[in-house]
């Protein structure tokens, strides 16, 4: 499908496409109620409650007032709906603001100020500096003589640098006045969401005689929500408007993620539902039998001899309603509430604020904090995630001469400096490519200092380094580049730019030296993309070696090459290139083909090596999380050697004697298959021994493995705790996540760049580093943090606490509902199986909504272990990973507890209030107060740390219970008039309650004490240690001390390791990897084997 935008045509063609009204709202005023209700009722729980509430409207069967279900149900629905409505209203307000913003648009040949929503496709929109672009435009003119303008695209892709946009050649140089009258047509594809691609054509109508088709690319567009910067004015033709812009199209609602805990709760709910059905059937049948044998004799009940046809259903349905509270209506509200609080705790956390930029962590997805505590695999990007993405030019090899090897900094290498002095031609060409072989924009400030706006940090590093080496890139004015070298000013004209693509792995510029008129092709790129294209006569061995050497140091390498082009060759080629650029079909492929026709027979100049600093605390973070039983995979687009070196330096893999690195490579299916099988075999053998085995695979082999040997690769993925995947594409990253997820592992993907977005969205939890490569990843992610090291805190503190708290809260919610439900069931045995409710409607509703909800909500403040203890003993995370705190067996414990408590409450209140005291309302209040007291003590016993808020909620709630019931008892119209006053005046009431509490809690308390002392879990041991200041804590502090010792002897360890195999030489002298060699030592090995056992165990659990 194509779209034709007729420029300045005020006729009917405008009506073809929609206006520029943007709408992000989900609802309209009319459809809000039905649509929202429909959405809410698509959940099973809500359907269940609705059914129950409807059944209650039938007075024959309802045991309680229908309001006891309708009230909470309407409340819950109202809360959700209000939240939705509020969000939608805010969207509407911001839409309205954007829609009513005024912009200058040419209408009927006259420039007018109109509202942004009235822009039509084909209108010419005028923007001034710092204006926001109201819709997608094709640039027609700018204030710049060369037709350039600058835009900031941070709202679109998160990149904060300025990008240049250029007027298409056909419109170049048209006068501003004429632009208002310009006519023409733009042919462009139907709206899509690709913000990096636009393939269009422009044809101007006479009198603008240039009737050639002029190709348009993304470089000629101004996209919605970008800002015009550093340009006085610009104007463009609207091509996509309203929600059809690139931004509007890419907006979508992501699938909501379901946590493992949620899935477990759903499962338990299902189990309870089945249990409920069984109870209902049993009691229903028993009730019908009792009715026929006994109740007909009870003359005072006056059962009619002949009932209606549905008579047999009445009693079962009554029991269904009586038991409906088994599934707590409050659980969804409570969980939503605490989950948003978990997210807030993450947002608030002072310890996760990056002190440099003062950016706090942020939880975009508020619903999945528990999953953080259950992570089993972390898939991490390398550049920008493990490393700072702060590139520094360190070394280079020019024409076979190595610079910077001595000092580690080529910029200070006297040899290089003197080579520059003497003007060695290779060195100068090398520096020229460094300075101008890029898309960097120099910005000269008023005081004369030059700042560079670079898209990639590598280019930034190169230009900066070139400037320090006297080759200063001063200005880029349209196609003219100005360079100052040793005081001389040189001008180059850029003829073509062959942009970087991940397939070609190189970028080139074709420039013309304005002095000599010679044309050069300057190329930089990955070694495997450049060296094979080298001139046949050139020896490239030395460069291969240089690349090898540098990447072993963990440095990023780029090869530089050039070639002089003959004028004929260039002109011939440029036609091909232009044509490729203007095709609409397969443009990328055609361009790549065109590039290939010129990018050959290079003269390779040299190799640059750029260092990417490791972020602070990366090795420690990885080590801690490893100890917590989390497996790491590194997925990077970088070279294998670089990746392995970075992996070594950040503790990702261990060097030889302890670790083993297995390669999976091969270019053909057979090779990959053999290699895969060999690795699998080795893995299976070595898993029994405490050895840190990791495998390395590159993108090519991975492609084959995923296509043909998915099964074997999945096996490998299960066996391997560590993997390095290099040279992988974004979609492969996502595929790897998919494989781990298919093995039922909880995966966390962390990355910082646009290439990580798919992996982040695919994983159970996506974490984005809000770093230098823009905010793209952080926007797509569930959590955004500033530094990799915050991951420890995110998982061990926030994830773990969230899991623990939710585990308690959800099981407790079932416990309290079951408790009251069991009492109702027991009561039906003494009320002739007729389905009488012991409790009145008000009490039932208040029990669920107030008495039992508020105390448990403060469990969000509970901490079983202090943060420090968890950090020192990350192994404790295992309890969360394996789901030890919320699973069918723990749930069975809670189920048993509620049954026991129901028996206690029922027997005691029944027997203590027998005979003359067994008045219905009184008995019901005695049993209810028994339940409320018991639950207060249950919460108390399950709470590990009491803050003032907890005391307030637990005991305040008891006070509130009495206050509320006194209030009800004071109302003559309520059923329980004077009951509570009467009860509280009787000593026997208090004795009964006291007895219920002790009989209910005593055995549980004794059991807990016994387990706590004689069968302690690891959590208990650490609790005891922490609170008694026991030996573990001191052990912990000792553990942390060797680090400082290590620092002192780190130089020594370098010397030691240098004598070892050169492959694993820790060459990043200032990286903290040296600690590792002394580091964890013996305990580390124990932990390894032990963790392997544990992970095998947890896998076994899953298989069952």
């Amino acid at each position, binding site marked *: 499908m194509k779209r034709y935008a007729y420029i300045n045509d005020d006729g009917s063609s405008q009506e073809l496409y929609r206006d520029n009204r943007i709408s992000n709202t989900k609802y309209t005023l009319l459809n809000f109620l039905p649509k929202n209700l429909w959405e809410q009722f698509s959940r099973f729980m809500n359907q269940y409650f609705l059914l129950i509430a409807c059944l209650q409207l039938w007075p024959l069967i309802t045991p309680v007032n229908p309001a006891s279900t309708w009230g909470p149900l309407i409340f819950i629905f109202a809360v959700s709906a209000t939240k939705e409505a509020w969000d939608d209203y805010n969207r509407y307000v911001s839409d309205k603001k954007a829609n009513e913003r005024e912009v200058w648009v040419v209408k009927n040949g006259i420039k007018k100020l109109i509202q942004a929503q009235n822009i039509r496709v084909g209108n010419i929109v005028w923007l001034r500096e710092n204006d926001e672009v109201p819709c997608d435009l094709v640039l027609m003119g700018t204030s710049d003589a060369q037709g350039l303008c600058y835009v900031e695209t941070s709202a679109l892709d998160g990149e*904060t*640098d300025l990008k240049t946009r250029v007027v298409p050649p056909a419109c170049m140089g048209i006068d501003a006045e004429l632009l208002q009258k310009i006519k023409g047509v733009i042919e462009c594809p139907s709206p899509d969401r690709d913000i990096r691609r636009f393939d269009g054509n422009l044809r101007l109508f006479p009198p603008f005689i240039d009737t050639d088709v002029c190709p348009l690319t993304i470089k000629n567009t101004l996209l919605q929500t970008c800002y015009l910067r550093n340009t006085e004015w610009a104007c463009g033709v609207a091509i996509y408007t309203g929600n059809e812009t690139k931004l509007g199209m890419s907006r979508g609602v992501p699938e909501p993620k379901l946590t493992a805990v949620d899935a477990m709760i759903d499962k338990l709910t299902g189990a309870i539902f089945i249990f409920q059905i069984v109870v209902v059937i049993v009691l229903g049948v028993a009730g019908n039998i009792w009715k026929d044998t006994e*109740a007909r004799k*009870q*003359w*005072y*009940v006056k*059962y009619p001899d002949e009932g209606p046809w549905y008579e047999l259903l009445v009693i079962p349905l009554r029991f269904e309603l009586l038991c409906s509270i088994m599934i707590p209506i409050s659980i969804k509200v409570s969980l939503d509430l605490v989950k948003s609080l978990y997210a807030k*705790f993450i947002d*608030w956390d*002072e*310890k996760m604020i990056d002190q440099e*930029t*003062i*950016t706090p962590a942020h939880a975009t997805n508020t619903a999945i904090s528990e999953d953080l505590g259950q992570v089993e695999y972390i898939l991490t990007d390398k550049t920008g995630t493990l490393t700072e993405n702060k590139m520094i030019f360190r070394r280079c090899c020019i024409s076979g001469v190595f610079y910077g090897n001595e000092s580690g900094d080529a910029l200070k290498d006297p040899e290089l400096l003197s080579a520059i002095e003497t003007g060695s031609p290779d060195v100068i060409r090398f520096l020229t490519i460094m300075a101008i072989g890029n898309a960097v924009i120099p910005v000269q*400030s008023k005081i004369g200092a030059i*700042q560079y706006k670079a898209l990639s940090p590598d280019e930034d590093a190169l230009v900066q380094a070139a400037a320090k080496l006297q080759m200063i890139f001063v200005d880029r004015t349209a196609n003219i580049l100005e360079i100052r070298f040793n005081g001389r000013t040189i001008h180059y004209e850029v003829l073509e730019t062959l942009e970087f693509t991940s397939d070609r792995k190189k970028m080139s510029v074709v420039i013309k030296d304005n002095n000599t008129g010679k044309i050069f092709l300057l190329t930089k790129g990955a070694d495997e993309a450049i060296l094979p294209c080298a001139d046949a006569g050139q020896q490239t061995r030395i460069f291969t070696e240089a690349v090898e050497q540098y990447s072993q140091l963990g440095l990023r390498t780029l090869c530089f090459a050039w070639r002089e082009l003959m004028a004929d060759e260039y002109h011939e080629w440029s036609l091909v290139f232009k044509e490729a650029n203007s095709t609409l079909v397969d443009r990328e492929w055609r361009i790549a083909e065109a590039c290939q026709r010129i990018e050959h027979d290079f003269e390779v100049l040299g190799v640059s090596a750029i260092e990417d600093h490791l972020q602070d605390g990366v090795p420690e973070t990885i080590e801690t999380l490893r100890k917590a039983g989390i497996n790491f995979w590194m997925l990077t687009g970088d070279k294998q050697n670089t990746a392995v070196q970075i992996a070594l330096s950040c503790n990702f893999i261990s060097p030889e004697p302890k670790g083993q690195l297995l390669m999976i490579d091969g270019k053909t299916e057979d090779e990959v298959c053999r290699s895969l099988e060999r690795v699998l075999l080795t893995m299976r053998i070595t898993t029994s021994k405490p050895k840190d085995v990791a495998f390395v695979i590159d993108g090519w082999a991975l492609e084959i493995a995923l296509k043909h040997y998915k099964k074997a690769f999945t096996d490998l993925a299960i066996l391997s705790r560590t993997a390095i995947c290099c040279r992988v594409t974004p979609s492969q990253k996502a595929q790897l996540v998919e494989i781990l997820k298919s093995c039922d592992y909880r995966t966390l993907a962390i990355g910082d760049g646009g290439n990580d977005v798919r992996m982040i969205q695919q994983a159970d939890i996506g974490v984005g580093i809000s770093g230098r490569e823009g905010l793209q990843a952080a926007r797509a992610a569930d959590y955004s943090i500033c530094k990799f090291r915050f991951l420890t805190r995110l998982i061990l503190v926030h994830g773990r606490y969230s899991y623990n708290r939710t585990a308690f809260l959800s099981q407790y919610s079932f416990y309290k509902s079951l408790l009251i439900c069991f009492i109702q069931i027991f009561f039906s045995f*003494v*009320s*002739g199986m*007729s389905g*009488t409710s*012991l409790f009145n409607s008000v009490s039932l509703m208040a029990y669920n909504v107030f008495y039992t909800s508020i105390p448990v909500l403060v469990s969000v*403040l509970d901490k079983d272990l202090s943060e420090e203890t968890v950090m020192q003993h990350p192994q404790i995370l295992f309890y969360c990973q394996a789901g030890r705190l919320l699973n069918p067996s723990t749930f069975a414990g809670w189920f048993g507890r509620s049954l026991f408590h129901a028996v206690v409450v029922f027997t005691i209140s*029944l*027997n*203590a209030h027998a005979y*003359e*005291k*067994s008045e*219905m309302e009184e008995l*019901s209040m005695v049993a209810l107060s028994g339940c409320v007291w018991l639950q207060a003590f249950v919460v108390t016993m399950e709470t590990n740390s*009491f*803050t*003032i808020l907890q005391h307030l909620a637990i005991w305040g709630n008891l006070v509130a219970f009495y206050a509320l019931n006194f209030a009800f008892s004071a109302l*003559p119209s309520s059923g329980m008039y*004077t009951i509570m006053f009467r009860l509280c005046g009787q*000593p*026997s009431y208090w*004795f*009964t309650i006291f*007895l219920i509490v*002790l*009989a209910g809690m*005593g055995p549980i*308390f*004794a059991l807990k004490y016994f387990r706590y*002392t004689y069968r*302690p879990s*690891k959590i208990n*041991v*650490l*609790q005891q*240690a*922490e609170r*008694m200041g026991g030996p573990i804590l001191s*052990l912990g502090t000792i553990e942390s001390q060797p680090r400082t010792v290590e620092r002192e002897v780190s130089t020594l360890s370098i010397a030691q390791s240098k004598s070892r195999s050169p492959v694993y030489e820790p060459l990043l002298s200032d990286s903290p990897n040296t600690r590792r060699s002394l580091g964890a030592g013996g*305990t580390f090995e124990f*932990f390894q084997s*032990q963790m392997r056992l544990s992970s095998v165990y947890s896998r076994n659990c899953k298989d069952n």
Partner: protein
Amino acid sequence: MSSTNNAPPSTAAASKRPKYSKFTQQELPACKPILTPRWVISAFMLISIIFVPIGVAALFASRDVIEIVDRYDSVCVPANETDKVKYIQTPGFKTCNRTLTVPKHMKPPIFVYYQLDNFYQNHRRYVKSRNDQQLRDSKEANSVSGCKPEDYNNNSAIVPCGLIAWSLFNDTYSFSRKNVPLNVSKKDISWKSDREHKFGKDVYPQNFQSGSLIGGAKLDSSIPLSEQEDLVVWMRTAALPTFRKLYGRIEVELQENDVIDVTLGNNYNTYSFNGKKKLVISTTSWLGGKNDFLGIAYLTVGGLCFFLAVMFTIIYLVKPRQLGDPSYLSWNRNPGWH
């Protein structure tokens, strides 16, 4: 990158910085109790020390209550009557004489109860079969919702409507000691709050027990409901199928071995469902009537707590265990945990 460019975002970020508080940092001062043996053992000990005396006191209170229970449902049917149901359903006042001996000195107030057994006042059809509005308000005589099937009779509303009122207990007792009638006070036997707020002073029985099937007692239609105390007592439905309801109060002392003659009107049908009828004369204690359950339960729980405390002490002495011993952490040990 450039400092000028960074300045605005960083100030913007500064406002983003969350406000520090102990709550937001989850650092509220917390008390973290741990279960040390000493603490737990003394807690159990303390409980047993508190519970045993209470149990003893409750038992004594219960023992102090003197209770005379006389089951009369079967003995009050003449021996020659084979069909008890038919006997009770024949109209007419059926008297029966019983003799009770006072086992011990009884001090007033002495309560007279009737006890019914296997009578489900808590049955769902029964317990809801009433209309509180009608009982309270004379203007609401026609609100009979929920009273089915005892709502209308001859097309006019029944006051008080519903099964509960309809099945009002109608056995009567009169007592005499040595041929001197014992006065049984029937005043104030119901809850004062019920008389004052639940049953109207100006609501009179209408159309009551006028149907073909007579349930229980009839009401004097000239006395307002609030003064029909038997009805008020009966309408306080019992939660259990065995229950006692207050019949009246004897305000004089009864001496040991006093013989009391009871003349009772045996009218109420419990025979069709094999329910028992008992006459109970009882004193009361500070805990209520005669009920050993509380005392025994307290003694049992107290005893169990004592037992647990002793057990835990023995375990603690025999097998002392250091809390928080790192050797229990398997990761500090050789492999072997899972």
